[in-house]
Protein backbone atom coordinates (compact mmCIF):
# COMPACT_ATOMS: atom_id res chain seq x y z
CA UNK A 1 0.00 0.00 0.00
CA UNK A 2 2.97 2.24 0.47
CA UNK A 3 3.84 1.82 -3.16
CA UNK A 4 0.46 2.94 -4.39
CA UNK A 5 0.67 6.24 -6.16
CA UNK A 6 -2.14 8.40 -7.34
CA UNK A 7 -1.56 7.99 -11.01
CA UNK A 8 -4.40 9.79 -12.61
CA UNK A 9 -4.39 10.29 -16.35
CA UNK A 10 -4.20 13.99 -17.00
CA UNK A 11 -4.82 15.85 -20.19
CA UNK A 12 -2.63 18.72 -21.38
CA UNK A 13 -5.03 21.39 -20.20
CA UNK A 14 -5.31 19.91 -16.78
CA UNK A 15 -1.55 19.65 -16.51
CA UNK A 16 -1.14 23.32 -17.21
CA UNK A 17 -3.81 24.06 -14.69
CA UNK A 18 -2.05 21.86 -12.19
CA UNK A 19 1.27 23.54 -12.77
CA UNK A 20 -0.10 26.99 -12.06
CA UNK A 21 -1.84 25.67 -9.02
CA UNK A 22 1.38 24.10 -7.85
CA UNK A 23 3.26 27.34 -8.27
CA UNK A 24 0.68 29.16 -6.25
CA UNK A 25 0.74 26.45 -3.61
CA UNK A 26 4.50 26.49 -3.18
CA UNK A 27 4.63 28.48 0.08
CA UNK A 28 2.09 26.03 1.45
CA UNK A 29 4.28 23.12 0.38
CA UNK A 30 7.26 24.61 2.17
CA UNK A 31 5.16 25.06 5.27
CA UNK A 32 4.00 21.46 5.01
CA UNK A 33 7.57 20.21 4.74
CA UNK A 34 8.67 22.33 7.66
CA UNK A 35 5.82 21.04 9.79
CA UNK A 36 6.44 17.41 8.91
CA UNK A 37 10.17 17.76 9.44
CA UNK A 38 9.63 19.26 12.88
CA UNK A 39 7.21 16.49 13.84
CA UNK A 40 9.52 13.78 12.46
CA UNK A 41 12.51 15.15 14.36
CA UNK A 42 10.46 15.48 17.54
CA UNK A 43 9.36 11.88 17.18
CA UNK A 44 12.91 10.67 16.61
CA UNK A 45 14.31 12.71 19.43
CA UNK A 46 13.67 10.45 22.45
CA UNK A 47 15.35 7.50 20.75
CA UNK A 48 18.20 9.66 19.48
CA UNK A 49 18.67 11.07 22.96
CA UNK A 50 18.92 7.59 24.43
CA UNK A 51 21.45 6.53 21.79
CA UNK A 52 23.48 9.69 22.31
CA UNK A 53 23.70 9.37 26.05
CA UNK A 54 24.43 5.67 25.96
CA UNK A 55 27.79 6.63 24.45
CA UNK A 56 28.72 9.08 27.18
CA UNK A 57 30.67 8.62 30.34
CA UNK A 58 28.73 8.95 33.58
CA UNK A 59 31.41 10.90 35.41
CA UNK A 60 31.51 13.40 32.54
CA UNK A 61 27.77 13.97 32.41
CA UNK A 62 27.42 14.19 36.15
CA UNK A 63 29.95 17.02 36.19
CA UNK A 64 28.90 18.87 33.03
CA UNK A 65 25.23 17.95 33.03
CA UNK A 66 23.38 16.29 30.18
CA UNK A 67 22.94 19.43 28.15
CA UNK A 68 26.56 19.31 27.04
CA UNK A 69 28.76 17.41 24.64
CA UNK A 70 31.72 15.18 25.33
CA UNK A 71 32.79 12.23 27.42
CA UNK A 72 32.38 9.72 24.63
CA UNK A 73 32.78 6.06 25.50
CA UNK A 74 31.46 2.63 24.60
CA UNK A 75 32.04 1.31 28.05
CA UNK A 76 28.36 1.64 29.04
CA UNK A 77 27.47 -1.12 26.60
CA UNK A 78 30.02 -3.54 27.96
CA UNK A 79 28.98 -2.70 31.47
CA UNK A 80 25.23 -2.91 30.85
CA UNK A 81 25.60 -6.19 29.00
CA UNK A 82 27.48 -7.79 31.86
CA UNK A 83 25.46 -6.37 34.71
CA UNK A 84 22.06 -7.13 33.26
CA UNK A 85 23.24 -10.51 32.00
CA UNK A 86 21.81 -9.84 28.56
CA UNK A 87 23.26 -13.01 27.04
CA UNK A 88 20.99 -15.10 29.24
CA UNK A 89 17.91 -12.94 28.75
CA UNK A 90 18.30 -12.80 24.99
CA UNK A 91 18.49 -16.58 24.93
CA UNK A 92 15.34 -16.70 27.08
CA UNK A 93 13.56 -14.36 24.67
CA UNK A 94 14.58 -16.58 21.81
CA UNK A 95 13.31 -19.72 23.61
CA UNK A 96 9.93 -18.07 24.00
CA UNK A 97 9.55 -16.06 20.81
CA UNK A 98 10.69 -18.53 18.17
CA UNK A 99 8.44 -21.48 19.14
CA UNK A 100 5.51 -19.19 19.91
CA UNK A 101 5.63 -17.52 16.50
CA UNK A 102 5.95 -20.82 14.63
CA UNK A 103 3.16 -22.40 16.65
CA UNK A 104 0.91 -19.36 16.25
CA UNK A 105 1.29 -19.31 12.49
CA UNK A 106 0.84 -23.06 12.24
CA UNK A 107 -2.33 -23.21 14.33
CA UNK A 108 -3.91 -20.09 12.91
CA UNK A 109 -3.23 -21.11 9.31
CA UNK A 110 -4.98 -24.42 9.95
CA UNK A 111 -8.07 -22.76 11.36
CA UNK A 112 -8.00 -20.13 8.63
CA UNK A 113 -7.77 -22.81 5.99
CA UNK A 114 -10.82 -24.62 7.29
CA UNK A 115 -12.81 -21.41 7.76
CA UNK A 116 -11.96 -20.16 4.28
CA UNK A 117 -12.34 -23.48 2.51
CA UNK A 118 -15.64 -24.61 3.91
CA UNK A 119 -18.85 -22.78 4.60
CA UNK A 120 -20.36 -23.82 7.81
CA UNK A 121 -23.03 -22.36 9.95
CA UNK A 122 -20.62 -21.73 12.80
CA UNK A 123 -17.86 -20.11 10.72
CA UNK A 124 -18.66 -16.59 11.80
CA UNK A 125 -18.93 -17.58 15.45
CA UNK A 126 -15.58 -19.33 15.27
CA UNK A 127 -13.90 -16.38 13.63
CA UNK A 128 -15.35 -14.10 16.30
CA UNK A 129 -14.22 -16.45 19.06
CA UNK A 130 -10.65 -16.39 17.79
CA UNK A 131 -10.45 -12.70 16.93
CA UNK A 132 -12.02 -11.47 20.16
CA UNK A 133 -9.60 -13.55 22.23
CA UNK A 134 -6.81 -11.36 20.95
CA UNK A 135 -8.44 -8.22 22.30
CA UNK A 136 -9.45 -9.28 25.81
CA UNK A 137 -7.60 -7.57 28.64
CA UNK A 138 -4.90 -10.00 29.75
CA UNK A 139 -5.24 -9.03 33.38
CA UNK A 140 -8.78 -10.35 33.52
CA UNK A 141 -7.57 -13.89 32.78
CA UNK A 142 -4.72 -13.88 35.20
CA UNK A 143 -6.13 -15.59 38.28
CA UNK A 144 -7.58 -18.74 36.71
CA UNK A 145 -4.62 -19.04 34.39
CA UNK A 146 -2.17 -18.67 37.24
CA UNK A 147 -3.97 -21.35 39.24
CA UNK A 148 -4.26 -23.60 36.19
CA UNK A 149 -0.56 -23.28 35.47
CA UNK A 150 0.28 -24.16 39.04
CA UNK A 151 -1.71 -27.38 38.94
CA UNK A 152 -0.35 -28.67 35.63
CA UNK A 153 2.79 -30.67 36.33
CA UNK A 154 5.66 -30.86 33.86
CA UNK A 155 8.52 -33.32 34.06
CA UNK A 156 11.71 -31.77 35.39
CA UNK A 157 13.52 -32.11 32.07
CA UNK A 158 10.96 -29.76 30.57
CA UNK A 159 10.79 -27.25 33.38
CA UNK A 160 12.92 -27.05 36.49
CA UNK A 161 9.95 -25.69 38.40
CA UNK A 162 8.13 -28.96 37.80
CA UNK A 163 4.99 -27.15 36.65
CA UNK A 164 3.70 -24.98 33.84
CA UNK A 165 4.08 -21.93 36.04
CA UNK A 166 7.54 -20.41 35.84
CA UNK A 167 8.36 -22.34 32.66
CA UNK A 168 9.04 -21.33 29.06
CA UNK A 169 6.31 -23.72 27.94
CA UNK A 170 3.68 -21.80 29.82
CA UNK A 171 4.69 -18.52 28.21
CA UNK A 172 4.87 -20.05 24.75
CA UNK A 173 1.35 -21.44 25.15
CA UNK A 174 -0.25 -18.29 26.48
CA UNK A 175 1.36 -16.09 23.83
CA UNK A 176 0.25 -18.51 21.16
CA UNK A 177 -3.31 -18.61 22.48
CA UNK A 178 -3.49 -14.84 22.47
CA UNK A 179 -1.94 -14.19 19.07
CA UNK A 180 -3.68 -17.00 17.19
CA UNK A 181 -6.82 -14.89 16.97
CA UNK A 182 -5.29 -12.02 15.08
CA UNK A 183 -3.42 -14.30 12.67
CA UNK A 184 -6.49 -16.43 12.04
CA UNK A 185 -8.44 -13.35 11.12
CA UNK A 186 -5.83 -12.05 8.68
CA UNK A 187 -5.14 -15.41 7.11
CA UNK A 188 -8.81 -16.30 6.69
CA UNK A 189 -9.36 -13.13 4.71
CA UNK A 190 -6.36 -13.83 2.57
CA UNK A 191 -7.24 -17.43 1.91
CA UNK A 192 -10.77 -16.49 0.87
CA UNK A 193 -9.28 -14.60 -2.05
CA UNK A 194 -7.52 -17.68 -3.43
CA UNK A 195 -9.32 -19.01 -6.50
CA UNK A 196 -11.60 -21.95 -5.75
CA UNK A 197 -10.65 -23.70 -8.99
CA UNK A 198 -7.32 -24.56 -7.43
CA UNK A 199 -9.03 -26.83 -4.95
CA UNK A 200 -11.24 -28.38 -7.56
CA UNK A 201 -8.17 -29.28 -9.58
CA UNK A 202 -6.45 -30.60 -6.47
CA UNK A 203 -9.45 -32.73 -5.62
CA UNK A 204 -9.54 -34.15 -9.12
CA UNK A 205 -5.92 -35.11 -8.59
CA UNK A 206 -7.02 -36.89 -5.44
CA UNK A 207 -5.29 -34.59 -2.96
CA UNK A 208 -6.64 -34.95 0.56
CA UNK A 209 -7.41 -32.07 2.87
CA UNK A 210 -4.00 -32.08 4.46
CA UNK A 211 -2.21 -31.86 1.12
CA UNK A 212 -4.57 -29.12 0.00
CA UNK A 213 -3.58 -27.22 3.09
CA UNK A 214 0.12 -27.92 3.35
CA UNK A 215 1.20 -28.20 -0.27
CA UNK A 216 -1.28 -25.94 -2.01
CA UNK A 217 -2.51 -23.22 0.33
CA UNK A 218 0.52 -22.59 2.50
CA UNK A 219 2.96 -21.83 -0.34
CA UNK A 220 0.43 -19.38 -1.77
CA UNK A 221 0.16 -17.65 1.59
CA UNK A 222 3.81 -16.69 1.82
CA UNK A 223 3.19 -12.91 1.69
CA UNK A 224 0.77 -12.74 4.64
CA UNK A 225 2.76 -15.35 6.55
CA UNK A 226 5.94 -13.32 6.18
CA UNK A 227 4.15 -10.16 7.25
CA UNK A 228 2.55 -11.87 10.25
CA UNK A 229 5.80 -13.54 11.27
CA UNK A 230 7.55 -10.17 11.34
CA UNK A 231 4.77 -8.63 13.36
CA UNK A 232 4.49 -11.54 15.78
CA UNK A 233 8.22 -11.66 16.45
CA UNK A 234 8.02 -8.00 17.42
CA UNK A 235 4.92 -8.42 19.57
CA UNK A 236 5.99 -11.52 21.42
CA UNK A 237 9.49 -10.16 21.94
CA UNK A 238 7.89 -7.00 23.33
CA UNK A 239 5.40 -8.90 25.50
CA UNK A 240 5.75 -7.77 29.07
CA UNK A 241 2.75 -8.74 31.19
CA UNK A 242 2.67 -12.54 30.97
CA UNK A 243 6.38 -12.94 31.51
CA UNK A 244 6.26 -10.61 34.50
CA UNK A 245 3.47 -12.46 36.28
CA UNK A 246 3.91 -16.06 35.15
CA UNK A 247 7.67 -16.25 35.67
CA UNK A 248 8.89 -16.21 39.23
CA UNK A 249 12.61 -16.78 38.78
CA UNK A 250 14.30 -13.66 37.46
CA UNK A 251 16.92 -15.58 35.52
CA UNK A 252 14.22 -16.98 33.24
CA UNK A 253 12.80 -13.59 32.30
CA UNK A 254 12.90 -12.65 28.64
CA UNK A 255 14.62 -9.39 27.75
CA UNK A 256 11.57 -7.13 27.88
CA UNK A 257 10.54 -8.19 31.38
CA UNK A 258 14.09 -8.19 32.67
CA UNK A 259 14.12 -4.46 32.01
CA UNK A 260 12.42 -4.06 35.32
CA UNK A 261 15.31 -5.67 37.18
CA UNK A 262 17.73 -3.51 35.27
CA UNK A 263 16.00 -0.43 36.58
CA UNK A 264 16.88 -1.04 40.19
CA UNK A 265 20.49 -1.88 39.45
CA UNK A 266 21.12 1.14 37.25
CA UNK A 267 18.94 3.58 39.05
CA UNK A 268 21.56 6.24 39.53
CA UNK A 269 23.34 5.87 36.21
CA UNK A 270 21.10 6.91 33.36
CA UNK A 271 23.86 6.43 30.81
CA UNK A 272 23.87 2.76 31.65
CA UNK A 273 20.08 2.71 31.45
CA UNK A 274 20.32 4.22 27.95
CA UNK A 275 22.81 1.60 26.86
CA UNK A 276 20.54 -1.12 28.26
CA UNK A 277 17.52 0.37 26.51
CA UNK A 278 19.36 0.56 23.20
CA UNK A 279 20.51 -3.05 23.51
CA UNK A 280 16.94 -4.18 24.16
CA UNK A 281 15.65 -2.09 21.27
CA UNK A 282 18.18 -3.42 18.75
CA UNK A 283 16.30 -6.56 17.65
CA UNK A 284 13.10 -4.61 17.05
CA UNK A 285 14.99 -1.80 15.33
CA UNK A 286 16.66 -4.30 13.03
CA UNK A 287 13.23 -5.67 12.14
CA UNK A 288 11.99 -2.14 11.70
CA UNK A 289 14.66 -1.17 9.20
CA UNK A 290 15.19 -4.47 7.44
CA UNK A 291 11.62 -5.71 7.24
CA UNK A 292 9.70 -2.47 7.31
CA UNK A 293 7.44 -3.44 4.44
CA UNK A 294 6.49 -6.73 6.07
CA UNK A 295 5.89 -5.07 9.40
CA UNK A 296 3.66 -2.36 7.99
CA UNK A 297 1.65 -4.67 5.81
CA UNK A 298 1.24 -7.06 8.75
CA UNK A 299 -0.15 -4.29 10.91
CA UNK A 300 -2.47 -2.92 8.28
CA UNK A 301 -3.63 -6.31 6.97
CA UNK A 302 -5.78 -6.74 10.02
CA UNK A 303 -7.41 -3.35 9.82
CA UNK A 304 -7.84 -2.75 6.11
CA UNK A 305 -8.73 -5.27 3.56
CA UNK A 306 -8.56 -4.13 -0.01
Amino acid at each position, binding site marked *: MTTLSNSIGTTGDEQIGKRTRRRRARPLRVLLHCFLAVVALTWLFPVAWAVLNSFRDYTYTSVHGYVSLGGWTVHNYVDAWQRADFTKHFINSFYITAPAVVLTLFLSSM*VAFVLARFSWRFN*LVMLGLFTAANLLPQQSLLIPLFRLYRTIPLPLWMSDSGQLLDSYWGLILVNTAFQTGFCTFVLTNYMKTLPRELYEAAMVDGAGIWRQYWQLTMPLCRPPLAALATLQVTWIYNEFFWATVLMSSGDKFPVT*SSLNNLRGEFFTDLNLVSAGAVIVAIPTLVIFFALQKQFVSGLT*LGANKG
Partner: protein
Amino acid sequence: MTDLPASPQQTSHSRGGGLRASAATTGRVTKLAGRDRMVVALMVVVPLTLVIGLVWLPAIVTVVLSFTNWDGIGPLSDIHFIGAKNYDDVLNIYPPFHPAVRNNLLFLAVLFLFATPFGMFLATLLDKEIRGSRLYQTAIYLPVVLSLALVGFIWQLIYSRDQGLINGIFGTSVDWYGDPKVNIWAVLVASSWKHVGYVMLLYLAGLKGVDPSLREAASMDGATEVRTYFSVVFPVLRPINIIILVITVIESLRAFDLVWVINKGRNGLEVISALVTQNIVGEASRIGFGSALAVLMLIISLVFITIYLSTVMREDQR
Protein backbone atom coordinates in the same frame (compact mmCIF):
# COMPACT_ATOMS: atom_id res chain seq x y z
CA MET B 1 -3.16 -4.34 1.73
CA THR B 2 -0.81 -4.46 -1.22
CA ASP B 3 -0.90 -8.18 -0.91
CA LEU B 4 -4.61 -8.47 -0.90
CA PRO B 5 -6.78 -8.52 -3.97
CA ALA B 6 -9.60 -6.04 -3.80
CA SER B 7 -12.52 -8.08 -2.63
CA PRO B 8 -13.12 -11.64 -1.61
CA GLN B 9 -14.85 -13.42 -4.44
CA GLN B 10 -16.87 -15.52 -2.18
CA THR B 11 -19.79 -13.54 -0.87
CA SER B 12 -22.33 -15.81 0.69
CA HIS B 13 -21.56 -18.40 3.23
CA SER B 14 -23.06 -19.97 6.28
CA ARG B 15 -26.15 -20.85 4.35
CA GLY B 16 -25.14 -24.35 3.32
CA GLY B 17 -24.99 -26.08 6.64
CA GLY B 18 -23.75 -29.56 7.21
CA LEU B 19 -20.31 -30.89 6.44
CA ARG B 20 -19.80 -30.15 2.80
CA ALA B 21 -17.36 -28.48 0.52
CA SER B 22 -19.11 -25.40 -0.78
CA ALA B 23 -18.90 -22.96 -3.66
CA ALA B 24 -16.10 -24.85 -5.36
CA THR B 25 -18.47 -27.65 -6.05
CA THR B 26 -21.64 -25.69 -6.53
CA GLY B 27 -24.44 -28.03 -7.38
CA ARG B 28 -22.86 -31.31 -6.58
CA VAL B 29 -22.39 -31.56 -2.89
CA THR B 30 -19.32 -33.58 -2.01
CA LYS B 31 -19.24 -35.17 1.35
CA LEU B 32 -15.80 -35.34 2.88
CA ALA B 33 -14.20 -38.72 3.11
CA GLY B 34 -13.71 -40.23 6.54
CA ARG B 35 -10.04 -39.47 6.79
CA ASP B 36 -10.44 -35.92 5.56
CA ARG B 37 -13.19 -35.39 8.05
CA MET B 38 -10.82 -36.37 10.83
CA VAL B 39 -8.13 -34.05 9.49
CA VAL B 40 -10.51 -31.10 9.29
CA ALA B 41 -11.76 -31.76 12.80
CA LEU B 42 -8.23 -31.87 14.18
CA MET B 43 -7.21 -28.73 12.34
CA VAL B 44 -9.94 -26.82 14.13
CA VAL B 45 -10.11 -28.61 17.45
CA VAL B 46 -6.46 -28.28 18.44
CA PRO B 47 -6.24 -24.48 18.09
CA LEU B 48 -9.75 -24.10 19.46
CA THR B 49 -8.86 -26.06 22.59
CA LEU B 50 -5.87 -23.83 23.19
CA VAL B 51 -7.80 -20.59 22.75
CA ILE B 52 -10.80 -21.73 24.77
CA GLY B 53 -8.68 -23.31 27.47
CA LEU B 54 -6.27 -20.44 27.95
CA VAL B 55 -8.44 -17.43 27.09
CA TRP B 56 -12.19 -17.98 27.22
CA LEU B 57 -12.37 -20.45 30.08
CA PRO B 58 -10.19 -18.30 32.37
CA ALA B 59 -12.36 -15.30 31.45
CA ILE B 60 -15.49 -17.17 32.53
CA VAL B 61 -13.86 -18.46 35.71
CA THR B 62 -12.86 -14.89 36.55
CA VAL B 63 -16.50 -13.88 36.37
CA VAL B 64 -17.46 -16.75 38.69
CA LEU B 65 -14.64 -15.98 41.14
CA SER B 66 -15.70 -12.35 41.38
CA PHE B 67 -18.74 -13.54 43.36
CA THR B 68 -16.66 -15.47 45.88
CA ASN B 69 -14.32 -14.75 48.75
CA TRP B 70 -11.58 -17.17 47.73
CA ASP B 71 -8.07 -16.33 48.91
CA GLY B 72 -6.45 -18.05 45.96
CA ILE B 73 -4.29 -20.34 48.08
CA GLY B 74 -6.66 -22.79 49.76
CA PRO B 75 -8.30 -25.73 48.01
CA LEU B 76 -11.17 -25.12 45.63
CA SER B 77 -13.60 -26.36 48.29
CA ASP B 78 -12.81 -23.20 50.27
CA ILE B 79 -14.66 -21.14 47.71
CA HIS B 80 -17.77 -19.53 49.16
CA PHE B 81 -20.20 -17.44 47.21
CA ILE B 82 -20.80 -14.05 48.75
CA GLY B 83 -22.98 -12.41 46.14
CA ALA B 84 -22.06 -8.99 44.85
CA LYS B 85 -20.09 -7.98 47.94
CA ASN B 86 -16.80 -7.66 46.03
CA TYR B 87 -18.38 -5.24 43.61
CA ASP B 88 -19.84 -3.27 46.47
CA ASP B 89 -16.40 -3.10 48.11
CA VAL B 90 -14.68 -2.09 44.90
CA LEU B 91 -17.08 0.77 44.36
CA ASN B 92 -17.38 1.98 47.93
CA ILE B 93 -14.43 1.15 50.16
CA TYR B 94 -11.43 0.72 47.89
CA PRO B 95 -9.55 4.04 47.80
CA PRO B 96 -7.46 3.51 44.62
CA PHE B 97 -10.52 2.57 42.54
CA HIS B 98 -11.74 6.08 41.81
CA PRO B 99 -8.31 7.45 40.90
CA ALA B 100 -7.85 4.43 38.64
CA VAL B 101 -11.12 5.00 36.83
CA ARG B 102 -10.28 8.66 36.54
CA ASN B 103 -6.84 7.88 35.13
CA ASN B 104 -8.21 5.37 32.65
CA LEU B 105 -10.77 7.92 31.49
CA LEU B 106 -8.05 10.54 31.26
CA PHE B 107 -6.02 8.11 29.20
CA LEU B 108 -8.95 7.59 26.90
CA ALA B 109 -9.68 11.30 26.65
CA VAL B 110 -6.10 12.27 25.81
CA LEU B 111 -5.61 9.48 23.29
CA PHE B 112 -9.02 10.10 21.75
CA LEU B 113 -8.92 13.90 21.66
CA PHE B 114 -5.25 14.49 20.91
CA ALA B 115 -3.13 11.49 19.95
CA THR B 116 -5.63 9.79 17.63
CA PRO B 117 -6.70 12.94 15.72
CA PHE B 118 -3.07 14.02 15.46
CA GLY B 119 -2.09 10.65 14.00
CA MET B 120 -4.97 10.91 11.53
CA PHE B 121 -3.97 14.45 10.66
CA LEU B 122 -0.38 13.40 9.98
CA ALA B 123 -1.66 10.56 7.82
CA THR B 124 -3.72 12.93 5.67
CA LEU B 125 -0.69 15.19 5.22
CA LEU B 126 1.57 12.27 4.36
CA ASP B 127 -0.98 10.93 1.91
CA LYS B 128 -0.28 13.87 -0.39
CA GLU B 129 2.39 13.40 -2.99
CA ILE B 130 5.30 14.97 -1.22
CA ARG B 131 8.98 14.30 -1.53
CA GLY B 132 10.45 12.36 1.34
CA SER B 133 7.07 11.16 2.58
CA ARG B 134 8.57 7.77 3.39
CA LEU B 135 11.25 9.37 5.50
CA TYR B 136 8.73 11.28 7.57
CA GLN B 137 6.57 8.18 7.95
CA THR B 138 9.52 6.12 9.12
CA ALA B 139 10.43 8.62 11.79
CA ILE B 140 6.89 8.90 13.09
CA TYR B 141 6.13 5.23 13.39
CA LEU B 142 9.50 4.19 14.76
CA PRO B 143 8.12 4.11 18.35
CA VAL B 144 5.52 1.54 17.25
CA VAL B 145 8.10 -1.26 17.23
CA LEU B 146 9.30 -0.50 20.74
CA SER B 147 7.63 -2.17 23.70
CA LEU B 148 5.76 0.09 26.09
CA ALA B 149 8.08 -1.05 28.85
CA LEU B 150 11.00 0.20 26.83
CA VAL B 151 9.17 3.44 26.09
CA GLY B 152 9.04 3.97 29.84
CA PHE B 153 12.81 3.65 30.08
CA ILE B 154 13.56 5.83 27.09
CA TRP B 155 11.44 8.63 28.48
CA GLN B 156 13.04 8.30 31.87
CA LEU B 157 16.08 10.01 30.38
CA ILE B 158 13.90 13.00 29.65
CA TYR B 159 11.81 12.91 32.82
CA SER B 160 14.29 11.98 35.53
CA ARG B 161 14.51 14.46 38.38
CA ASP B 162 18.28 14.64 38.75
CA GLN B 163 19.52 13.62 35.33
CA GLY B 164 16.54 14.27 33.07
CA LEU B 165 16.60 16.52 30.03
CA ILE B 166 13.61 18.68 30.96
CA ASN B 167 14.97 19.62 34.35
CA GLY B 168 18.42 20.05 32.80
CA ILE B 169 17.16 22.59 30.31
CA PHE B 170 14.73 24.50 32.46
CA GLY B 171 16.60 24.23 35.73
CA THR B 172 13.50 22.81 37.42
CA SER B 173 13.50 19.90 39.81
CA VAL B 174 10.22 18.18 39.10
CA ASP B 175 10.18 14.43 39.54
CA TRP B 176 8.08 13.77 36.44
CA TYR B 177 7.62 10.06 37.12
CA GLY B 178 7.37 10.33 40.89
CA ASP B 179 5.23 13.37 41.65
CA PRO B 180 1.61 12.17 41.81
CA LYS B 181 0.39 15.54 40.53
CA VAL B 182 2.18 15.36 37.21
CA ASN B 183 3.23 11.78 36.58
CA ILE B 184 0.05 10.70 34.81
CA TRP B 185 0.66 13.48 32.27
CA ALA B 186 4.24 12.36 31.78
CA VAL B 187 2.96 8.85 31.09
CA LEU B 188 0.32 10.19 28.73
CA VAL B 189 2.90 12.05 26.66
CA ALA B 190 5.10 8.97 26.42
CA SER B 191 2.24 6.70 25.47
CA SER B 192 0.82 9.20 22.96
CA TRP B 193 4.24 9.21 21.33
CA LYS B 194 3.72 5.58 20.41
CA HIS B 195 -0.02 5.79 19.76
CA VAL B 196 0.28 8.61 17.20
CA GLY B 197 2.60 6.50 15.06
CA TYR B 198 0.28 3.52 15.23
CA VAL B 199 -2.79 5.51 14.25
CA MET B 200 -0.87 7.29 11.49
CA LEU B 201 0.15 3.97 10.01
CA LEU B 202 -3.32 2.44 10.07
CA TYR B 203 -5.00 5.53 8.76
CA LEU B 204 -2.49 6.10 5.99
CA ALA B 205 -3.14 2.60 4.74
CA GLY B 206 -6.85 3.39 4.79
CA LEU B 207 -6.35 6.63 2.88
CA LYS B 208 -4.31 4.91 0.19
CA GLY B 209 -7.26 2.65 -0.38
CA VAL B 210 -9.70 5.49 -1.10
CA ASP B 211 -10.75 5.53 -4.74
CA PRO B 212 -8.90 8.51 -6.33
CA SER B 213 -11.86 9.23 -8.61
CA LEU B 214 -13.93 10.22 -5.57
CA ARG B 215 -11.51 13.00 -4.77
CA GLU B 216 -11.28 14.02 -8.38
CA ALA B 217 -15.02 14.32 -8.63
CA ALA B 218 -15.13 16.43 -5.49
CA SER B 219 -12.42 18.78 -6.68
CA MET B 220 -14.15 19.16 -10.05
CA ASP B 221 -17.22 20.25 -8.17
CA GLY B 222 -15.03 22.94 -6.73
CA ALA B 223 -14.71 21.56 -3.22
CA THR B 224 -11.62 22.63 -1.28
CA GLU B 225 -9.25 19.99 0.03
CA VAL B 226 -10.52 20.36 3.57
CA ARG B 227 -14.11 20.14 2.42
CA THR B 228 -13.30 17.09 0.26
CA TYR B 229 -11.73 15.39 3.23
CA PHE B 230 -14.62 15.96 5.59
CA SER B 231 -17.50 15.33 3.24
CA VAL B 232 -16.03 12.61 1.00
CA VAL B 233 -12.95 10.89 2.39
CA PHE B 234 -13.87 10.75 6.07
CA PRO B 235 -17.31 9.15 5.53
CA VAL B 236 -15.84 6.63 3.08
CA LEU B 237 -13.32 5.60 5.70
CA ARG B 238 -16.00 4.83 8.27
CA PRO B 239 -14.83 1.25 8.93
CA ILE B 240 -11.24 2.27 9.55
CA ASN B 241 -12.44 5.13 11.74
CA ILE B 242 -14.33 2.66 13.89
CA ILE B 243 -11.37 0.32 14.07
CA ILE B 244 -9.12 3.16 15.18
CA LEU B 245 -11.67 4.23 17.77
CA VAL B 246 -11.86 0.70 19.17
CA ILE B 247 -8.08 0.35 19.21
CA THR B 248 -7.86 3.64 21.10
CA VAL B 249 -10.37 2.48 23.71
CA ILE B 250 -8.74 -0.91 24.15
CA GLU B 251 -5.25 0.57 24.35
CA SER B 252 -6.31 3.01 27.03
CA LEU B 253 -8.03 0.25 28.96
CA ARG B 254 -5.04 -2.06 28.74
CA ALA B 255 -2.53 0.66 29.68
CA PHE B 256 -0.33 -1.42 31.90
CA ASP B 257 3.27 -1.97 30.88
CA LEU B 258 4.24 1.67 31.11
CA VAL B 259 2.86 2.33 34.59
CA TRP B 260 4.09 -1.04 35.84
CA VAL B 261 7.72 -0.35 34.93
CA ILE B 262 7.51 3.11 36.47
CA ASN B 263 6.05 2.32 39.89
CA LYS B 264 3.69 -0.66 39.61
CA GLY B 265 0.68 1.60 39.28
CA ARG B 266 0.76 3.47 42.57
CA ASN B 267 1.08 7.02 43.73
CA GLY B 268 -0.78 8.89 41.02
CA LEU B 269 -0.44 6.21 38.35
CA GLU B 270 -3.34 3.98 39.39
CA VAL B 271 -4.98 2.26 36.42
CA ILE B 272 -7.50 -0.58 36.61
CA SER B 273 -5.25 -3.16 34.98
CA ALA B 274 -2.51 -2.44 37.51
CA LEU B 275 -4.98 -2.69 40.42
CA VAL B 276 -6.09 -6.11 39.21
CA THR B 277 -2.49 -7.28 39.07
CA GLN B 278 -1.65 -5.81 42.49
CA ASN B 279 -4.55 -7.65 44.07
CA ILE B 280 -3.45 -10.93 42.61
CA VAL B 281 0.32 -11.05 42.61
CA GLY B 282 0.88 -8.40 45.25
CA GLU B 283 1.45 -9.06 48.93
CA ALA B 284 -2.28 -9.17 49.71
CA SER B 285 -3.82 -11.76 47.46
CA ARG B 286 -7.51 -10.89 47.28
CA ILE B 287 -8.72 -13.07 44.47
CA GLY B 288 -12.44 -12.39 44.56
CA PHE B 289 -11.82 -8.70 44.89
CA GLY B 290 -9.29 -8.61 42.07
CA SER B 291 -11.67 -10.63 39.93
CA ALA B 292 -14.44 -8.12 40.41
CA LEU B 293 -12.11 -5.43 39.10
CA ALA B 294 -11.12 -7.70 36.23
CA VAL B 295 -14.76 -8.32 35.32
CA LEU B 296 -15.37 -4.59 35.05
CA MET B 297 -12.51 -4.41 32.54
CA LEU B 298 -13.85 -7.43 30.74
CA ILE B 299 -17.31 -5.95 30.31
CA ILE B 300 -16.07 -2.63 28.97
CA SER B 301 -13.72 -4.29 26.51
CA LEU B 302 -16.34 -6.80 25.35
CA VAL B 303 -18.63 -3.94 24.38
CA PHE B 304 -15.94 -2.50 22.14
CA ILE B 305 -14.78 -5.87 20.87
CA THR B 306 -18.34 -6.47 19.69
CA ILE B 307 -18.34 -3.15 17.86
CA TYR B 308 -14.99 -4.04 16.32
CA LEU B 309 -16.07 -7.49 15.22
CA SER B 310 -19.32 -6.34 13.72
CA THR B 311 -17.43 -3.66 11.77
CA VAL B 312 -14.71 -5.89 10.38
CA MET B 313 -17.07 -8.72 9.64
CA ARG B 314 -19.53 -6.53 7.84
CA GLU B 315 -16.60 -5.35 5.73
CA ASP B 316 -15.80 -8.96 5.20
CA GLN B 317 -19.21 -9.71 3.82
CA ARG B 318 -18.94 -7.08 1.12
